[in-house]
């Protein structure tokens, strides 16, 4: 299993797909990287040349933040929003959607599993 950019070990998939196993690299970024380095997307990760591998690694490290570094940046950004007391920071604090989505219904990803409220009328009873 080849190693790219530190700790990541993509499998024996096509290199475009293998790169997306790195946190912070999606399909389009992966395509762009390979295009910039003139590497064929279809090659399996294990069949890549040693110097091709290292060139990909160096290129990524130089241009993008990935993995732990990216995660740290994200939490820093969120804690910044919280500390200045902005609206977005509040939404993060309360665990509610941050970008103006509705919360009357849905928003379950942010709010977690449904909490049933006793005595609240169901839709059936109202109709």
């Amino acid at each position, binding site marked *: 299993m080849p190693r790219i950019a530190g700790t990541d070990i993509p499998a024996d998939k096509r290199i475009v797909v293998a790169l997306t196993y790195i946190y912070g690299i999606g399909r389009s970024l992966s395509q762009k990287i390979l295009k910039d380095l003139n590497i064929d997307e279809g090659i399996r990760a294990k069949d890549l040349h040693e110097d091709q591998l290292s060139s990909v690694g160096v290129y990524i490290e130089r241009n993008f933040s990935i993995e732990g570094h990216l995660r740290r940046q994200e939490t820093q950004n969120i804690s910044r929003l919280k*500390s*200045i007391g902005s*609206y*977005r920071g*509040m939404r993060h*604090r*309360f665990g509610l959607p941050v970008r103006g989505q509705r919360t009357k219904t849905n928003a379950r990803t942010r709010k977690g599993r449904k909490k049933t*409220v006793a005595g609240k009328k169901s839709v059936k009873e109202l109709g």
Partner: protein
Amino acid sequence: MSRSVKKGPYIDQKLLKKVLKQKDAKGGEPIRTWARSCTIVPEFISHTFMIHNGKGFQRLFVTDDMVGHKLGEFAPTRVFKSHGGVKKKGAPRG
């Protein structure tokens, strides 16, 4: 969709004028404003504002972290009344 870069940030001109005037005078009263959509620019740092939230004014001391945000982001327009259960707990924080 975000604002076109060509136009630059939206700044309330009257408010900016007031801030600059206060800067010359070195301090003074907190500035009352209704311009919630005004972007905070570096000139605003370490000035105090009273931002209208539709009902009253919320005091805000601007720090350098706040540059680039809008004034309105710091004066919530809605009050969240928490659901009081049998056990009363404080509003969720942290």
